């Protein structure tokens, strides 16, 4: 492969690559990525494509409250998926809600990845007391279910914050709790690959020419341990979205004034008994579709990058 490839030929190289071939021959994966991209775009463009602004109280009318979806009897063409008890458009609420869910997911995955990579590289390369310290923490955290650790961290942060800040800081608390809970997995993986890489010849060569340890870690070892990290990141994106939704559903996540998908499900759940099923079912379906699609992508990536399966 030429080093100085033009963007054009790089694209053709990618289209001809093994990875892309595996991608386009797996229909499930193509479908999963289509769903992911669709939800991503819809969430990104929410302010422009949402039919209503769910946060603009002046446009809400109680006359429009609890309208069923458009295909059911009594549906209103203005509200494709119906409205909730305050006359908010369910579709618009879902669009804005996925924005928050995805934002929390992406930011916490990015943060956890950076922290996990740094800890993993340092632990694996230097070993000794630093390694023992981080890995004992990891042991304790991994022996409890993720959702419990996330609940506990968010509970501690909430206990430390004054009550009136709970709503305004909800987004930060969520990202913090999910990051603290999930960095361990990256650290473990990077650590074990680093321990293999550090006795390779290219590392000795770099040490011999006098490169500093951190330069070796980040410019030589890091690129060689990134593969598994990407797989974990994809699967963890689904998990982060799920943890966020669960925390919000349990009432310790996003407030109803700024709802994520989990909050929408929580709020909609309260109206289930009056037969108003659409307020809770559509956000749930969106969440399930998103998590399932991202999970399938992660599974595919894991198999595609695994040399043993080729």
């Amino acid at each position, binding site marked *: 492969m030429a080093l100085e490839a033009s963007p054009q030929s790089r694209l053709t190289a990618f289209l001809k690559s093994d990875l892309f071939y595996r991608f386009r021959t797996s229909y499930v994966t193509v479908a999963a990525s289509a769903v992911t991209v669709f939800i991503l775009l819809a969430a990104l463009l929410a302010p422009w494509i949402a039919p209503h602004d769910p946060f603009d109280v002046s446009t809400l009318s109680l006359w429009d409250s609890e309208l069923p979806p458009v295909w059911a009897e009594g549906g209103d063409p203005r509200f494709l998926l119906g409205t909730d008890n305050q006359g908010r458009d369910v579709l618009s609420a879902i669009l804005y809600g996925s924005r928050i869910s995805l934002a929390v997911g992406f930011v916490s995955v990015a943060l956890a990845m950076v922290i996990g990579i740094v800890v993993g590289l340092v632990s694996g390369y230097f070993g000794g007391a630093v390694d023992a310290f981080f890995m004992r923490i990891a042991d*304790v955290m991994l022996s*409890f279910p993720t959702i419990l650790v996330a609940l506990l961290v968010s*509970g501690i942060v909430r206990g430390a914050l004054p009550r009136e800040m709970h709503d305004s800081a909800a987004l930060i608390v969520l990202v913090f709790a999910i990051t603290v809970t999930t960095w361990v997995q990256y650290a473990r993986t990077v650590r074990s690959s680093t321990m293999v890489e550090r006795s390779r010849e290219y590392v000795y060569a770099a040490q011999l020419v006098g490169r500093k340890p951190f330069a070796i870690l980040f410019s030589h070892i890091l690129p060689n341990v990134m593969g598994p990290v990407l797989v974990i990141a994809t699967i963890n994106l689904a998990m982060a979205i799920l943890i966020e939704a669960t925390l919000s559903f349990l009432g*310790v996540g996003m407030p109803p004034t700024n709802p994520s998908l989990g909050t929408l499900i929580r709020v909609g759940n309260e109206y289930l008994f009056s037969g108003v099923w659409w307020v*809770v079912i559509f956000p749930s379906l969106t*969440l*399930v579709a998103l998590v399932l699609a991202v999970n399938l992508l992660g599974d595919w990536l894991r198999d595609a990058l695994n040399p043993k399966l080729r």
Partner: protein
Amino acid sequence: MIAFILKRLIQSVIVMLAVALIAFSMFRFIGDPVNSMLPENASAEDRQELREQLGLDQPVTVQFTRFVTGAVQGEFGISYRNKRAVAEMIAERLPATLELVLAAAVFALLLGVPMGIYAALHPKGVLSNMLNVISLIGISVPTFVTGILLILVFSVWLNWLPSFGRGETVQIGWWRTGFLTVSGLKSLILPAVMLGLFQVTLIMRLVRAEMMEVLRSDFVRFARARGLTNRAVNFGHALGNTLMPVITIVGLQLGAMIAFAIITETVFQWPGMGLLFIQAVSFGDIPVMSAYLVMVALVFVAINMIVDLLYFAIDPRLSVRA
């Protein structure tokens, strides 16, 4: 053998001490316990008195020792929100959670094991493929969505089963059970199914994988060569060897189920420990949170230790290493 048990015990004690330290620091350093426990207009003398009563004027190491001795005796202080002894509140809620987890585990085993056996015996069957697809979807659907769907179908649309609470309960000593009344049993069905469904998929996959491996092993081949019937080979020889690892995993999962019960209890307003914990988290009720943390950690550590010791008793190879 004794050395191994001792080592394992010491390890468990260290983990519990670490958890206790976290729980203690939560109580001591997050917010001011005195402010949280007294009304806002309390006098300076009242504050001072409570401070001395809680021992907050003593060195931190002394406080930690007091906390640990208290915790060992089941004393976790007073809830900020209900102004009641935390130990008492947890004792009241514990039976509800344990009954829920027990019912869910039984449900998961009764459904998961036969499904796994079937899938292992007929790996190419249509039904097996269907079971696989269903289990894949089952893993991706968040448990609270499953719960909502169950309520929508069985409570709202069909009106067969109650959707919240425990129904009528009977008090036996300090244990309040829902097993003895019809409404108690009916209320248990949906929550137990919701909590158990995720475990069903897990157990099914596990049983299937283990059993397929056992079916390929030599002793099964020899059993067939001896002319034993399929039934005798599959259920007399293979199944017993499959179930050992399954039982250990299910044991380990019991701890996880107590944690996941938090979600189930929220969906069904089930008055157990999980509901108590989630209310504590949203209120910032630190004593309840730290007590729950210590309790759950104790369950996890105990289960882990029992499983390790069981392995040690079963697998002779381990005794050489120790």
